[in-house]
């Protein structure tokens, strides 16, 4: 079971709801994925674009919790404000702290994320910060009460996969809280790889929303995550050949 704060989840796949062509596809993808946690963003209400409004369709989903993100915030203060608005609107204690000042590469601001996470954790939120794959930052966020850390696999929407794998392994090694890869995944095989490697869950958005058949891709990602977990439990075979030196190193041990 994946445990975030005091809430347990059977599914280790978390879905983002952005970039879908329409709400109906998004809802169908969520259902196909079996996810129990989805992210949403806050935007100004626009009476002329009611189709953007997700609240009604999301409310109909059974067993799916909402995790508002703070996307759009440029600094910690704005992110805290966004989180409070999100909690007020959703009634959910979950928040994904996401602060990316540069609108091109969308890389997360480590310093502002730390400041926001610290304040929100103290205010009772279940905080999941989206961060560069930095092992020191991850421990600092754990220390201030985050429920998990979410290191990026690669830049949002890049589809570059687990480019930060070695860093993520270091984070996993010393973390006492779940490690969730968020951003950059393109294929279900990469989600499987992340779980095999030791991640507790993955968060996927672009790879599903921008697939040719998002609903089928959502299902495929769910299978990928389950496969990765089953493989990890089964114990993968050894990787390397055991190289033996030409002159024995241990001849001094008689």
């Amino acid at each position, binding site marked *: 079971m994946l445990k975030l704060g005091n809430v347990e989840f059977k599914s280790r796949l978390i879905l*983002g*709801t952005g970039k879908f062509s329409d709400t109906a596809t998004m809802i169908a993808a969520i259902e196909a994925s079996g996810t129990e946690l989805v992210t*949403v*963003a*806050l*935007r100004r209400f626009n*009476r002329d674009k009611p189709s953007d409004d997700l*609240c009604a369709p999301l409310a109909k989903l059974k067993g799916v919790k909402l995790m508002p993100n703070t996307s759009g915030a440029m600094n910690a203060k704005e992110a805290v404000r966004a989180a409070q*608005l999100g909690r007020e*609107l959703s009634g959910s204690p979950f928040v994904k702290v996401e602060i990316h000042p540069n609108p091109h590469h969308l890389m997360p601001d480590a310093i502002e994320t730390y400041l926001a996470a610290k304040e929100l954790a103290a205010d009772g939120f279940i905080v999941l910060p989206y961060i560069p794959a930095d092992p020191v930052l991850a421990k600092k966020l754990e220390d201030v009460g985050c429920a998990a850390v979410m290191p990026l696999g690669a830049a949002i929407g890049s589809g570059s996969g687990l480019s930060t794998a070695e860093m993520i392994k270091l984070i996993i090694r010393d973390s006492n809280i779940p490690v969730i890869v968020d951003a950059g995944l393109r294929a279900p095989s990469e989600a499987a790889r992340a779980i095999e490697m030791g991640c507790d869950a993955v968060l996927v958005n672009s790879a599903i929303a921008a697939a040719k058949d998002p609903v089928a891709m959502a299902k495929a990602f769910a299978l990928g995550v389950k496969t990765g977990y089953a493989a990890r439990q089964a114990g993968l075979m050894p990787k390397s050949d055991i190289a033996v030196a030409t002159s024995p190193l241990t001849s001094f041990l008689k």
Partner: protein
Amino acid sequence: MFLTVNGNKIEHLGDGTVSALLAELGATPEHTALTVNGDLVFSKHWKIFKLNDGDTIEVLTFVGGG
């Protein structure tokens, strides 16, 4: 009274409560969060919270996001 709502100047013709404003805008209260002059106003206060002429209001809802 005149209010700035989501960046647009509008004239509010109701009784000046948040509830009245949302009804005027056609926003569903359960799907809306609101700030007045930068401060979050909790929904439990909407029936009584009085807006003032010149207030800046953000009316927010959830949309898709990663």
